[in-house]
């Protein structure tokens, strides 16, 4: 591709148009979170009539945002920890062993990723209700039910991405560990895992993002007690008022940690996502 004059014009136009497309919603989110309520109830303005941090203070009182935050954090962190641990074991098996059913396993796991969530939603809801009726283990309306559900959402992609990472680590390294008297698990723990650290971090961030942003199952499986941010943010619309400035403030606050995490790990993440697509 030569950088002709025409190409430079093309690049300029594309970057400006797409830049605005991406930028304007982010700008609206940030500036609206700094507006007093009357600004978001009248005609739209590009700049707050007076800058205020009140929405960031009030948002905790209008709805029990802190509780949603705690719920989302506990659910997402637990789902991430379990998902990554399970994925590491499975990926190690897929990468380092040849065994009967290996292809069947990877194909099945990956294909579940492709099916729409609504397919599992109804039966899963029903299964959870019936587990509660038969065993007294409450899964609808508890964090546990969400954790179990969410950990499987990131599992297929995590297993597959980690298996790719493990494959890129030379086998000679774990063979050396085996000669030194480590078992296969020792080799995984002492040799493979440390070498695959960027992959593990990327997978963890992916799992966290998946759980943190999930809406469909949260809308059915949560009650007031275990409500997460993804559905909790809807509570800002009361019958008399929609507190758009507080909604934008809350949306901003819940986004910042994931966006920063993602952007920090984007290099590893991009590699994983695209390795998948390219394959």
């Amino acid at each position, binding site marked *: *591709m*030569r950088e*002709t004059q025409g190409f430079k014009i093309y*690049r300029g136009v*594309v970057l400006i148009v*797409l830049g605005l*497309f*991406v930028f304007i*919603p*982010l700008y*609206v989110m940030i500036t609206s979170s700094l507006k007093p309520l009357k600004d*978001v*109830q009248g005609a*739209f303005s590009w700049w707050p009539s007076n800058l205020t941090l009140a929405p960031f203070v009030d948002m905790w009182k209008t709805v029990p945002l802190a509780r949603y935050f705690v719920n989302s954090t506990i659910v997402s962190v637990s789902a991430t920890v379990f998902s990554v641990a*399970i*994925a590491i*074991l*499975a990926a*190690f*098996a897929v990468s380092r062993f*040849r*065994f009967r059913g290996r292809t069947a396993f990877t194909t*099945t*796991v990956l294909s*579940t990723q492709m*099916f*729409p969530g*609504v*397919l*599992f939603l*109804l*039966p*899963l809801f*029903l*299964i959870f209700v*019936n587990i509660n009726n038969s065993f007294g283990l409450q899964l609808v309306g508890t964090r546990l039910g969400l954790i*179990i*559900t969410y950990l*499987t959402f990131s*599992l297929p992609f995590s297993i597959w991405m980690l298996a790719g*990472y493990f*494959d*890129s680590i030379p*086998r000679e390294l774990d063979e050396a560990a085996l000669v030194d008297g480590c078992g296969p698990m020792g080799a995984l723990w002492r040799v493979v895992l440390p070498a695959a650290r960027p992959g593990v971090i990327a997978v963890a961030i992916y799992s966290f993002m998946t759980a943190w*942003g999930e*809406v*469909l199952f949260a809308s059915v499986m949560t009650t007031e007690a275990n409500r997460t941010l993804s559905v909790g*943010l*809807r509570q800002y619309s009361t019958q008399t008022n929609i507190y*758009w400035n507080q*909604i934008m403030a809350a949306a901003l606050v*819940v986004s910042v940690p*994931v966006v920063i995490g993602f952007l920090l790990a*984007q290099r590893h993440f991009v*590699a*994983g*996502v*695209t*390795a998948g697509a*390219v394959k």
Partner: protein
Amino acid sequence: MSVATQEATPAAAKPAKKKTRRGPEHRPGLNRWLPYLLLAPAVLAELLIHIIPMVVGIWMSFIKLTKFFIANWSAAPSAGLNNYKVALDFNNAVGEGLLKSFGVTVVFSLVTVALSWVLGMAAAVALQPPFRGRGIIRTFFLVPYALPAYAGILTWNFMLQRDTGAVNHVLNQLHLSDGRTFWLIGSNALVSLITVATWKLWTFAFLTLMAGLQSIPGDLYEAASVDGAGNIRQWRNITLPSLRPVNLVLVLVLFLWTFSDFNTPYVLFGTAQPPAGDLITFHIYNASFLTWNFGTGAAMSVLLLIFLMIVTGAYLLVTGRRSRRA
């Protein structure tokens, strides 16, 4: 990006390498069972959340599972093919609703996938030759993808409000409309859905295509330049063919995602979905949880699954045949 491609290569070369690999040879007894032991937690989780519910879902579609039987589903009477008949009888309200929703979803997915691909490609090509600030722009473009889905969609919801939103304000100032357009109810709902979904999705297309572009050797372009090919011809004769394998997967993945998109309509419209924005997943969700008639909901889900499997199968068949001929 160079790091990214280096890391991507071993993963891409995975299938070829695997065949020559063998497990550790000593302690054969343990090693025969160890892989299964390692897989057990993953298999259990997948069974509980995906496989068993899917089987149960198919079974549910054949029983009369109304709200009276939800706590005691084994007592629900068999419905035979009745749920399917109801869902596919386009002369009554339920079937008609499903058909309309299906039509809306087809338009939504095709337009969203096409737009996302075009925008992603435009940006990826624009960022192909290195220049100062390229890394920052790329990172910035990734923000909509990194944002939790609901946060981005809520912002759009605010922007699309009739009286207080930014969209009407801008259109009015540019003298493109009187600034009193309803975006979230009525027939404009589909336009809004497509815009919001594209905003979130084009970034993924961009990400994937950009990584694909990195793997095209620069010599190809140099040789073409020497032969006098301009940028447009280089794009058509080098970039597009080289990206073919990436595009094949990318388009399929984008389609499957958009076709079952739930977040966008749910966060944008709440439970009062306008008919023009009634995407199929959302439709099934409402059909099930508003009426608590899980039987028909399950039948609709199975029909959706069958449709997606047919489309995927046909897609793979057609594209596979074409690449073999090529």
